[in-house]
C-alpha cells in the first residue's frame, strides 16, 4: 500500500517536474526528424503521416504549434501548421522554424526534394525546395499602437544536406514575404530572411542497430534578418513613441512608402547557435535544444533575446499505402 502510494507520489512529482521544465523553456519547436532550429532536407515516404505538437515560449509569449505532414509522392511532402498564441508577451518577430511561421497563422507548405543522390550504405546527399502560403490568424497587441491587419504570407526556401550514419551537415536559407489582403491596406507585417548551418553527429555509443532507440546530436547556427513592419498612419491610434537612441531607429515619417509609416519597434537581426538532440523510438520522435545569441540587434525598444530553447514531440504513422 505504502509502495503504491510512493509510486503514485513519485509519478506525480515527475509530472510536475516535466510541466515545470516545459514552462521554463523558451521557444520550443522542432519537427523531430532532423535539426530542431535549422533546415532539414528529409521528407516523408509516400503515404506516411506525421503529427507534431510543440510548445513555444519566447520573450514572454507562449505558442502552441500543431503540424501535420503527409508524404504525397516520392520526394514530395505537404504540411499544414497552425501555431497560435496562448498568451501574448513581447511578440517575437521572424520565423520560429524553417517549417513553421513565427506569427499565429495557418500555413500550407510543400517540400520538394529536387536532388537525391544515394551513394552508399547510410549515405545520401539531398537538396530540397520549400514553398508555402500562410494567413495570419490572430491580432497581436503591440506596445506602439493597434495590432497590424491580418495578412497573407509567401515563403520560399532551399536546403542541402549530406547525411551519413555518423555525420550530418546541412545548410539552408529562406525568405518570407507578407503582403496585404486588399490593395488599399497599408499595414505590412515584417518580412523575414532565415538561414541555418547545422552539423550533426551520432556518437559510437549510440550507434545501435534497428530497432533500438536512436540518438543524434546537432550543433545548430541560425541567422535571421527581419524587416520592419509598417502601419497605415490614418488608423494609427498611438502608443508610446520609441526612444531615438536604439540601434536601427529611423524616424517613421522618413521611411514611409505609399503613405505607410514604418514602425521603429520592429525588425532587426540575430545569429544564434547551440546544441540540440534528436531521440527516436518506435514511431515517436523527441527533440530538444538550446541556442544562445551570438549577435542580437533588434530595432527600437524590442527586448533582446538571449537564448532559445526547443522541445518538440512527433508521432509518425508509417507504412503508407497498401
Amino acid at each position: 500500500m505504502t509502495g503504491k502510494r510512493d509510486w503514485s507520489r513519485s509519478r506525480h512529482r515527475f509530472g510536475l517536474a516535466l510541466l515545470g521544465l516545459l514552462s521554463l523553456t523558451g521557444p520550443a519547436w522542432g519537427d523531430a526528424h532532423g535539426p530542431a532550429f535549422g533546415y532539414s532536407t528529409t521528407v516523408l515516404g509516400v503515404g506516411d503521416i506525421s503529427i507534431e505538437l510543440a510548445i513555444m515560449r519566447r520573450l514572454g509569449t507562449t505558442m502552441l504549434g500543431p503540424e501535420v505532414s503527409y508524404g504525397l509522392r516520392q520526394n514530395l511532402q505537404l504540411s499544414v501548421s497552425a501555431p497560435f498564441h496562448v498568451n501574448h508577451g513581447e511578440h517575437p518577430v521572424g520565423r520560429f522554424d524553417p517549417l513553421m511561421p513565427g506569427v499565429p497563422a495557418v500555413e500550407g507548405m510543400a517540400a520538394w526534394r529536387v536532388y537525391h543522390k544515394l551513394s552508399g550504405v547510410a549515405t545520401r546527399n539531398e537538396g530540397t525546395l520549400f514553398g508555402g502560403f500562410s494567413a495570419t490568424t490572430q491580432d497581436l497587441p503591440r506596445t506602439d499602437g493597434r495590432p497590424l491587419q491580418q495578412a497573407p504570407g509567401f515563403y520560399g526556401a532551399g536546403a542541402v544536406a549530406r547525411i551519413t550514419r555518423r555525420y550530418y551537415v546541412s545548410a539552408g536559407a529562406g525568405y518570407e514575404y507578407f503582403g496585404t489582403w486588399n490593395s488599399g491596406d497599408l499595414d505590412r507585417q515584417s518580412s523575414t530572411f532565415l538561414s541555418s548551418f547545422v552539423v550533426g553527429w551520432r556518437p559510437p555509443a549510440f550507434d545501435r542497430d534497428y530497432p533500438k532507440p536512436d540518438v543524434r546530436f546537432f550543433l545548430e547556427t541560425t541567422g535571421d534578418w527581419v524587416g520592419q513592419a509598417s502601419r497605415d498612419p490614418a488608423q494609427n491610434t498611438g502608443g508610446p513613441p520609441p526612444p531615438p537612441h536604439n540601434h536601427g531607429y529611423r524616424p517613421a515619417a522618413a521611411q514611409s512608402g505609399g503613405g505607410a509609416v514604418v514602425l521603429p519597434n520592429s525588425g532587426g537581426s540575430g545569429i544564434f547557435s547551440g546544441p540540440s538532440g534528436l531521440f527516436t523510438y518506435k514511431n515517436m520522435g523527441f527533440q530538444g535544444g538550446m541556442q544562445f545569441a551570438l549577435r542580437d540587434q533588434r530595432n527600437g525598444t524590442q527586448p533582446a533575446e538571449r537564448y532559445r530553447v526547443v522541445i518538440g514531440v512527433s508521432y509518425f504513422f508509417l507504412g503508407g499505402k497498401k
Partner: protein
Amino acid sequence: MTLAAKSILRLVAFAALICASNCLHAQYERIQMRVYGLDCELCARGVAASIMRLGGVKSVAVNLKQGLLDIALKPDNNFKMSSLRKRIQDNGFRSMEATVTAFGKFDGSRFEVLGSGEWFEVKAQDSKSPPPIELTFQTRESSLRAVP
C-alpha cells in the same frame, strides 16, 4: 496390404500433395537486399512498415549498419520483386543487389519465378529435379525483367 500400411500410404500421398501445392504457389521465399541511404532508426522503421504492407510478406528484418533488408515471405504468396523495389524507392531509398531464394523454372539462362511474371538472368543450373526448382541466386540493381 494391411490397414496400417494403407493409412501410411494415404498420409504420404497427402503430404506430397500439400508439398507440391506449396511448391507451385510459394514463389519468392526470401530476399536479402542491400539498400542505400538508410541512416536512422525511423527511416528503417518506415521502410519495414511499408514493405510489411505488401501482400505475402511474413517478416522484415533491418540491419542498418550493413544497409540490409531481410524479407521472409509467406507460402502461397504472389509477391513481386518490382513492387518491393518501388516501395523502397517511394520511401526515399535505393534498392541495390539482392540474394533471392525462389521457386521457378529455367528457360535457357532465364530463371522465371513462378507466378510472379518476373525473371532474372542467372547461370543455368544442372538440376535433375523437375521444375519448379528452388534456387538461391544474386541479382543486381537492375537485372529484374518482366516475362514478356
